[in-house]
C-alpha cells in the first residue's frame, strides 16, 4: 500500500447526531461531516497540517474535506456519515442489498 492509500471508515459521531437536528445546512453539521480524522503520523507523512484540505478518491467518486488529528490507527481514516461520504460510497451491494460503506480503499492527497 502506497503512503497515499488508506482504508476509509464511515460512521456516526455524537456531534453529527446532535447537529442534524439543527438542519442539514447548519454550520455545525456541515463542519462535522466534512472533517476527516487521520492518525497524526499519517498527516505528517503526507506533509499536511491539521485543517488542510484533502481530496479523497475512491473507485466510485471523490470529495474534498479538511483533515484533523484523531485517535485512529495509521492507515485508517474516518469521516462521519453525510453528503461527503455519499460521494465516496458505491451502490454495488454484491446482491446483498447493502453497499460497502466501511472498509473502503481510498486515496488521500493534498487539495489546493
Amino acid at each position, binding site marked *: 500500500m502506497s503512503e497515499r492509500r488508506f482504508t476509509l471508515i464511515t460512521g456516526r459521531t455524537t456531534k453529527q447526531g446532535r447537529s442534524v437536528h439543527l*438542519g442539514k445546512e447548519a454550520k455545525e453539521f456541515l463542519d462535522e461531516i466534512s472533517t476527516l480524522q487521520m492518525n497524526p503520523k499519517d498527516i505528517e507523512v503526507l506533509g499536511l497540517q491539521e485543517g488542510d484540505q484533502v481530496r479523497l478518491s475512491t473507485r*466510485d467518486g471523490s470529495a474534498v474535506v479538511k483533515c484533523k488529528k484523531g485517535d485512529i490507527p495509521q492507515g485508517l481514516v474516518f469521516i462521519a456519515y453525510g453528503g461527503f461520504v455519499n460521494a465516496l460510497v458505491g451502490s454495488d451491494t454484491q446482491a*446483498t442489498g447493502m453497499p460497502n460503506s466501511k472498509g473502503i480503499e481510498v486515496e488521500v492527497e493534498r487539495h489546493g
Partner: protein
Amino acid sequence: MAESVGLKESKGLKVIEGVTCPFCGVTCDDLVVHVENGKIKEVKNACVLGKDTFMHHLEGWATPRIHGKPATVDQCIDAAAEILAKAKYPLIYGLDSTELGAQRKSIELADLIGANIDHTSSVCHAPSLQAVQTVGISSCTVGEVKNRADLVIFWGCNPAEAHPRHPSRYSVTAKGLFTPRGKKDRMVIHVDVRPTPTARMADAFIQIKPNSDYEVFSALRALLKGHELDQAEVGGVAIDEWKTLLEKMKSSKFGILYWGMGLTMTRGKYLNIVALLTLTQELNRFTKFLAAPMRGHGNVVGMAQVLTWQTGFPFAVNMSRGYPRFNPGEYSVADLLAHGEVDAALILAADAIGNFPAKMAEHLRSIPMIAVDPKESETTKVATVVIPSAQAGIAAGGIAYRMDHIPLVMKKVVDSPYPSDREILERIIAKVAAMKNGGNGAPVRAGGARG
C-alpha cells in the same frame, strides 16, 4: 390513551413523565418533558441526542408543496395519490422513524399499488436480519443484560456515540439483581478497527484489521472446538489474545455480544453475522451466551416486526405480483435505485437523498417522488410533492419497538398543525383505492387491496 398517563399540569406548564424517546433503538422510556404554552421547554433524563431531538423539533419544518410551489396538505395528498396510482413499479421507503400504525399503513399501501417496500434497515442492519433468518439467534432483552450479564462485548459498534444511555441503563454501569455493583460485576470488551469512544468505558480493547471479522469469528469457532491454528495471528491480533478472549467468554456466567455496522457494512456482510451468531450459539455448550444487534433508528425494529408479521419477510419486499416476494439484491432499495428500476417513490420519515450513495440518489432525483417528513431535508428539497407530518414520538403518539423487540408507547407531547404519518397514509390509500376503482388507474388485482 397514554397521553393522560403521568401528566401533571399547573399554570400552563405541563410536566409529562414516562415519555419514550423516538431517536435511537434504545427508545428510553423514562424521559420527563416540560411543555409550556404548547412548546417544549425542558427534557430530563435524555442523552444529548434525545434531548436535541425534542428541543430542536420546531427547527427546519417542512412546508407543503408541489413542484416547489406552495400547496395545501389536501392538494399534496391528491397529487401523491395520483403519482402512486399511475406508477408501474413504485418504491415505498424510509418508515423506521415513525410509529407502528403508520408502518402498518405503508404495507397496506404497498399491497394496493403493487410496490416494492423497504426501510432504512436495508442499508443498516438488514444483513443482521438475513443472518438471523439463516441460522437463528440466541438473544435476550436488555433487562436480562442489566440483571445478569457479567461479560459484555461490543463488536463493531460504538454505543458511547450512537446509543449513549445503553451502557448506563443496561450494559456497563447498570446495577441489577445479579450485578448489584454495576460495572464492578461486569467485564466489558470492545472489538473494533479503531479505538472509538466506547473503548474508554471498556476493560479491554482489541483492535482488528478492517474487513477481517469473518476470519476472526471462524478462527474463534475453530479454537472453541479444540483445533490448533497454524497462524501466529488472525485479523492482526495474536492467536493467544483470541484464546484469552475465548476463555473469558467460556468462563462467564452470562455473556452477550452486541454488534453494529462494523460488521454489516463491511466485506462479508450477512456472512459476518452468520459466523458471529454461530459462535455465540456454540458457546452455549459451555455457558449462557447471547447476541443482539445495536439498532439505530427509534422504531426500526417495529417496521421489521410488522413487515415480517404481514408478509413473512423483514425488508426488501416486492408486492408487484399481488403477493409478497423477498430478494435482497433485487428488491432492496440500493439495488432498485442503482439499477434505475423504480418509476416513482414515496419516502416517509427518512432523508434518502441525504444518506444514499450518489448513484442511488441520482435515480431518485429523476423520478416523481413524494416526501412525507416533519422536517426539510435533502430529500424534501428535490421531491415532487412534500407533505409535512406531525413528528412521531413528539407530535404524534403510537407504538415503538425497542431494540430488543419490546413494544413501548410513544406519547404525543405537543400538537402539530400537520397530520400524523398514519393519517397521511390512510388518506393516500383512500384516494388511490378510489382512483383505481373508478377506472382511472390500473384495475385492482384479485386479492389486492385489503381493508
